[in-house]
């Protein structure tokens, strides 16, 4: 026989359960727009029934809210993070590549191509009017335009590299921040779940952090049987349960590449072991900062190429210019030097600190091998040019160096850096110093040397990529292809990610319509339970107040 009040208890359990469901539902609605929120459901179960004697069977005792669960597909999380790491990488790479594209500014009417075109044109004019100061002034202005053009490109690339370096620092700090927060959350979640339940909202927070972390760095994560959560990244343990390992940035002592900006950072684990980025924003940033070759060429590749362009071009211009005679009947004057030096200062600088801040290396003997006084100058020039590239190629560490002709001898020196190139002081201060004549007796009307300078444009043997025009063309199409790849990958990754996110939302997202209909459902159930309560109340009222009044 059931107790008198058992019906009340059943009605009460119904009220409580529906109320709890409504609370969870209200929580869902409140968090409909919360980032990373996963919708929750109350699972209900009938209480253990009372077994009635005999064959009557069992009688229900009401409802119990068993747990509040998250509707979440962990496989989609895994997929999301896998795609996010790629998106982070390509997106960041695209950013960097687009900046480089802007720095080169081609194709346009203001890029280096245009400046070079105008410079050649002014040299052609000089050939026609070698003694005209107006034409000389024009050549000087156009030459200055070329040097400032190259200089600003070089400086912009260095600035970009420094900016990227700063981003590396910021990203590392972000990663450390996330991993710290995750480790802290681990502590809270582990504590909260010690009794067996699930800390849903805390887990949402943690999942969101892992999502964000996956954009920055390629991670592996897992939760063990004990509910301990681990994140590994690039061979190290970023988070292991309550503890997190930090990444640090360390200033480089020596430049990785000659054209690098100063004081770049390397990323390593705080423990001192090395860190190799395998994905995410951090990898893209490090690639952009450090890669001089390979699939994902970064700033150093373009800075190096720009220096190669500058160096070879100035070597050739200086070689021709210094062999000619100027209006003051002097020869041996360079057209281009660095930092506004005069030819003499520049030569002195190269000889004393031209190679890795030390003295330039005299390689005259290896350079003039095979030349002979009986050859024509052109034949000897060809042999010398060939020997120059051989010497640079065959000596380890000198691949990105340059051979310069100083005071009648050949020296290995650093490449002329695009950031430092200027017009030589001699030409800067004296228009007459532009050497237009190939022979002293040709003064002042001989413009042949100016013409030789102008035809550097068509010298297809100047670079491995051909003439100076070809070089720029190849560099720009390289840049174009790289940027295009980054743009395509970034676009397709963001589509893929959108798709995964969609699937995730489809499962975990809060649908207001759904919540509304659920609300109506639970509201009705609540109302009905309340009505049952009232009915039982009336029954009891009858029992208590009305019974035993017979015959009164």
């Amino acid at each position, binding site marked *: 026989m059931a107790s008198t009040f058992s019906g009340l208890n059943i009605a009460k359990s119904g009220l409580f359960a529906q109320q709890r469901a409504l609370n969870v539902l209200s929580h869902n609605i409140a968090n409909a727009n919360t980032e990373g929120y996963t919708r929750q459901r109350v699972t209900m179960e009938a209480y253990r029934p009372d077994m009635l004697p005999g064959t009557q069977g069992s009688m229900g005792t009401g409802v119990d809210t068993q747990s509040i669960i998250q509707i979440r597909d962990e496989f989609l999380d895994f997929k999301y993070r896998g795609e996010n790491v790629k998106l982070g990488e390509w997106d960041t790479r695209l950013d960097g*590549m*687009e900046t480089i*594209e*802007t720095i080169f500014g*081609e*194709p346009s009417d203001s890029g280096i*191509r245009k400046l070079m*075109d105008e410079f*050649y*044109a002014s040299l*052609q*004019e000089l*050939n*026609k*009017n070698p*003694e005209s100061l107006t034409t000389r002034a024009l050549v000087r202005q156009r030459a200055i335009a070329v040097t400032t053009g190259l200089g600003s490109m070089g400086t912009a690339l260095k600035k970009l590299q420094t900016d990227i370096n700063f981003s590396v620092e910021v990203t590392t700090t972000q990663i450390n921040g996330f991993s710290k927060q995750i480790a802290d959350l681990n502590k809270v979640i582990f504590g909260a779940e010690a009794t067996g339940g699930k800390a849903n909202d805390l887990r949402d927070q943690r999942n969101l952090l892992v999502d964000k972390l996956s954009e920055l760095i390629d991670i592996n994560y897992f939760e063990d049987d004990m509910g301990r959560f681990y994140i590994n990244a690039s061979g190290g343990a970023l988070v292991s349960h309550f503890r997190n390992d930090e990444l640090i940035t360390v200033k480089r002592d020596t430049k990785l590449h000659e054209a690098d900006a100063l004081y770049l950072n390397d990323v390593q684990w705080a423990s001192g072991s090395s860190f190799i980025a395998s994905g995410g924003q951090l990898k893209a940033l490090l690639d952009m900062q450090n890669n001089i070759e390979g699939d994902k060429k970064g700033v150093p590749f373009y800075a190096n190429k720009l220096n190669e362009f500058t160096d070879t071009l100035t070597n050739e211009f200086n070689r021709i210019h210094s062999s000619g005679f100027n209006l003051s009947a002097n*020869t041996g004057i360079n057209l281009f030097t660095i930092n506004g030096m005069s030819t003499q200062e520049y030569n002195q600088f190269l000889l004393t600190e031209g190679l890795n801040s030390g*003295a330039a290396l*005299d390689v005259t*003997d290896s350079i003039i091998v095979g030349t002979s*006084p009986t050859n024509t100058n052109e034949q000897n020039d060809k042999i010398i040019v060939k020997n120059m590239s051989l010497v640079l190629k065959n000596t380890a560490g000198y691949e990105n160096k340059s051979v310069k002709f100083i005071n009648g*001898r050949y020296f290995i020196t650093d490449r002329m850096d695009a950031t430092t190139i200027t017009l030589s002081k001699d030409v800067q201060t004296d228009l007459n110093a532009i050497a237009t004549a190939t*022979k*002293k*007796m*040709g*003064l*002042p*009307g*001989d*413009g*042949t040397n100016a*013409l030789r300078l*102008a*035809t550097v*444009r*068509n010298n297809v043997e100047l670079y491995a990529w051909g003439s100076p025009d070809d070089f720029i*063309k*190849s560099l*720009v*199409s*390289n*840049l*174009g*292809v790289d*940027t*295009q790849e980054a*743009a395509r990958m970034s676009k397709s990754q963001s589509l893929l990610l*959108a798709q995964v*996110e*969609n699937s995730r939302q*489809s*499962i975990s*997202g*809060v*649908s*207001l*319509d759904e919540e*509304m209909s659920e609300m*109506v459902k639970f509201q009705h159930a609540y109302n009905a339970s309340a009505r049952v309560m009232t009915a039982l109340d009336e029954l009891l009222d009858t029992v208590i107040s009305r019974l035993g009044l017979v015959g009164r």
Partner: protein
Amino acid sequence: MRVTNNMMVDQLRRNLLLTQQSMYTKQDQLATGKRIQRASDDPILSSKVLKYSSDISALSQYERNTTDALSWLEITESAVYDNVKLLQRARELTVQAANGTNTPSDTKKMSLEMDGLMKQLISNGNMNFAGRYIFSGFETNKPLFKDDGSFNIDISQLTIDKPPVTEYEVGIGENMNISSNGLELYGFNLITDTFTNKVPVGVVKGAPATQSVLNGAFALNQNYSADNLNVVRDDGVNPPVTFTVNSALMNGTIYPLTKETVLNAYRNADDGLGNKLSSVADIYYDASDKLVIKNKAYGAITLTTAAVNFTPTATTGVNTVEAVVSTPTTITDAEVLAGTNDFLNKEMVITINGNRQKIALFTTPPPPTTVANVITEMNAKFDLAFGPGNVVATGVSGGAISIATGNSPQNGQAPTLSVETIRATESSLINDMKVVYGAMLIGDQATISSFLGKIDVHLNNVLAIQTDIGARVNRMELVVNRIAENTVTYTRQLSDAQDADISEVIMTLKNSENVYKSALSVGARVIQPTLLDFLR
């Protein structure tokens, strides 16, 4: 699939963004008129754009060059054409004057016109184009003639076998010679006198010095701290210089030395005056790992005393071979005396290693009477021009005069010496005109008649030059046409590569706009209603 409100909003936002991106690109293309904004829009096309733009810029420069070349050639042509007319008139005048019936007073009247013609010829020779004298070779800042018809410029640079050439580039590797040689047009009279016949002329190249070398094994595990490793260098001119090597720290028995240390020790060896050994010698390890100290120029290089652990072999260099220009003909004091005045104001052009100097001898009397006088004067002027002892003339009566560059042990380069004498100061054409003018003044019929033969030679010469210039003008005109055609072609190709097809862009833009509008209107419907709106 379960669809939530946020999914719909997100999807709508993404789609709107995509359509907007497409509209953004199209609007950019319309506003700039260009299909490619950045290299990544189309790497292949953008490299084409760069190529065509450069080609067009080069072509427009070639076009300017050909226009200038044409102007220059045309002004030359007009001067030469004028000369033809003048010479024809001079010929008529001469024929008229050669008629035996003319009295000296008749020919004197004709001489006035002849004088006028000569002055006009001189003035044509001084023709300039935009301030540049067109017949003066590279000395474009000076007129060809002085007022009296003698050459105003140093004609040694205009001599016929190596005329100066001014070329304009009118195509890749295609140069157009626009210069005309005034000397060819006006002819010149060679002067032959004692001076020109007896003073040597020519170009001679000497041989370079070979360097002296110290070469020996320098073991890295020895102790050199007690050794005297100092090096002496003797350039053969100045006193020998000792370069002190700091051997105190060079003990390789504890820690082996490095090549770098050894090289630095030698490179920084000091002469006590702050000069380093590296400034006069190359120091390096050769292929067989021996230390090499090689003099940069001629001169001896040795160790001061024999070192115990470093016993290099020394190879002595050979000095430069001097360049000597001499003449096979001999000269005697008697010949100098006979042609005394031939030496007055004589000019020579001497070039050593590209340094060209014009030297005038005996600018003030007295003229020389002996060979020794000539040699003394030459050496005095050579020393003034090149510094003492660099160019030396030698010779005695009865022998040949020779001119030599002194040895140059300090730089060790092969000397090249070139000696020329200036052998003409007058144009043969102007000179002949002067002669006939003089003859007309006094009615000298024989001289007048003899001019007829000469003027025909001059006339033919000028006509040949006129033909040559005409041919060059024709060629230029062809080049102008070709450049114009190429410019059209390249401009079209550039436009194909770079310009946006406006009608196509507008159509796709309109299309995107429609999509955008429908997306907006759908969005407005999708976002608005929820179940909430219908619950009461």
